[in-house]
């Protein structure tokens, strides 16, 4: 990990010194255990703030919005790069404006899972090989209790089923590519498909009921870049504006549907959600459908066309009477 951090810092330094970029977007140490904070480095002196660990969970491609007429560098893991590719394919970004410091990713850890696995407040963590070593706070004056957890049990859900941990495109790769696991990226969706309609309805209603319409999911998502979101339309108002059941469900359905063929499964939405709504299964359904119906996964290559903006003349469904 230390080599990776050094590689990132050196590249950032080189880019800023030569004036190749104006800005390097990456991660810095957070103020809390298990948090990394997105950082915007413009001065060579600040490149030492750049770091990398298994809590670099935000999708930094989100910050490339509105990058025009300047060049920025971004420290990007597999899913972040998929988002960058998807944005380029949707003409939201020019390839030439982004310098990608690609980071092959072993998966990010979910601090919520860690918190629930230890018998007290987490004072500090450190990564040792395939384990996370957690210092758990005890009474004042006594030494913290130490708990060791296997990394494989702590991964975020999107990371556990990641199909593209290695950056699809990059200008420089900060580390060796990682092994791609043979996983079913739609496992969570298949599980839901096995349930009855009534069970699915109940599950969705229970998840949506916790929504507080903070729009953190939308704001964290690199693909939600509309200047005016459908929830802010008043003529017509598509869904109820408040925290009523139909309003909350309408929001969840609307956002998920607008991501059809666009969601890169980075999981940033689920991580941002303060009430821990299951967004992986929700967005995942449409991801699976787009794969099954059109053989398409977004962000996998430059030049792909958005699947809902195109058609093949003879494809189904037939929709016969």
């Amino acid at each position: 990990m230390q080599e990776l951090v050094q590689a990132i810092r050196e590249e950032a330094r080189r880019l800023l010194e030569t004036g190749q970029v104006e800005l390097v977007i990456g991660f810095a140490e957070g103020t809390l255990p298990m948090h990394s904070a997105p950082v915007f480095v413009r001065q060579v002196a600040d490149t030492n703030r750049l770091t990398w660990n298994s809590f670099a969970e935000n999708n930094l491609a989100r910050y490339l919005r509105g990058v025009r007429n300047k060049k920025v560098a971004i420290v990007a893991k597999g899913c972040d790069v998929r988002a960058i590719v998807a944005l380029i394919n949707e003409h939201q970004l020019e390839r030439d404006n982004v310098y990608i410091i690609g980071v092959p990713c072993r998966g990010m850890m979910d601090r919520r899972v860690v918190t629930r696995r230890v018998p007290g407040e987490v004072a500090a963590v450190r990564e040792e090989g395939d384990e996370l070593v957690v210092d758990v706070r005890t009474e004042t004056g006594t030494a913290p209790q130490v708990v060791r957890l296997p990394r494989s049990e702590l991964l975020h859900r999107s990371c556990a089923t990641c199909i593209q941990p290695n950056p699809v495109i990059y200008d420089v790769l900060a580390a060796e590519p990682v092994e791609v696991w043979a996983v079913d990226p739609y496992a969570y969706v298949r599980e839901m498909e096995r349930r009855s309609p009534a069970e699915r309805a109940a599950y969705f209603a229970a998840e949506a009921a916790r929504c507080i319409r903070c729009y953190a999911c939308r704001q964290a998502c690199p693909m939600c870049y509309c200047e005016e979101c459908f929830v802010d339309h008043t003529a017509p108002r598509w869904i109820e504006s408040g925290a009523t059941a139909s309003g909350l469900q309408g929001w969840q359905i609307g956002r998920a549907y607008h991501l059809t063929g666009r969601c890169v499964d980075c999981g940033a939405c689920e991580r941002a959600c303060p009430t821990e709504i299951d967004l992986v299964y929700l967005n995942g359904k449409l991801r699976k459908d787009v794969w099954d119906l059109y053989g398409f996964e977004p962000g996998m290559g430059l030049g792909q066309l958005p699947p809902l903006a195109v058609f093949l003349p003879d494809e189904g469904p037939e929709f016969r009477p």
Partner: protein
Amino acid sequence: MTRQKISRADLGALLAKLQQDYTVYAPAEVAGYSTFRPITSPEEVDWYCLVTRKPPKELFFPQSETLFEYICSSDGLALHPGEGVQRERILWGVRPCDARAMLVQDTVFNTSEARDVYYSNKREHTTIVGIGCNEPLQTCFCTSVGGRPFRHEGFDLFLTDIGDAYLVEALTPKGDKLLEGSELFPVSQADLRTAQAVEQAARQRLPAPIDLEHIQKRLQEMINSPFWDEAQAPCLGCGICTFLCPVCHCFDIVDEPVNASCGLRVRNWDTCQYCIYTLEASGHNPRPGGRERVRQRLMHKFDYQPLRQNVLGCVGCGRCVQLCPVNIDIRQLLVGIGATE
């Protein structure tokens, strides 16, 4: 206003008894985290949750509230407000920071000059039971902003966990009413010493007070400072910090038509962090970017509210610190502001 002692078992029994006459809201598990919700039995209460995921303000200022229904007919326009609280409520297990926040909300919704009937109706019919914080979290900072982990203001009844029992203190007639018929014991000197020790230990885990006057002054002086460019850079512009803040109280009022002749007027939470919050009909937006909005949040809490309402807009609960998806830490910002020239 004397302190008495109640055993843990009796406290549970008291809660069970109170449920017969009151709807009891307490921190309880929802999908893996704890937050205030109606409980059906005392076993559901999470006694050790210091910071509920959502603040108790939603008991008085719900996220969405129907103000009235409107119906146009040949007889004219009729407005039908909803009914007020139907059953007395207890808000059980509130921490001193959240109670302090409710007092701030009172300065907005419940003053003699301006009484919001929806809010004040709920306030009147709610008894608030507090509990002191024996083990503040790393994200707690009430003491930085003038609070204390065992502060009694804002409560009708206050509990102190001294290990084998609770000290209980009724602070108002509403609080007295809750204790009617309960078996309570006198408090010994040893109990008082334990309580003091518990409070002392709690305070040691909390940070030192910050110079709020200095912060206020600096905020007034640094409107154009480049400090805000860096502070706002990672901000996503979501509503988490404001929605989960026990003090924040902005709202938007909208009409939701049911059909062409009737509908509902609804009040929803709003947040100064949305890019459209200050967007005017002309298209002008006086707070066009994250810089202005992040700055405004700090200024509202640490300058405008003290100026206008004589009260600080932050109680140090730490929810925004815990839940900001990009780790914008208000404590770090305050340190930064204090350190600027």
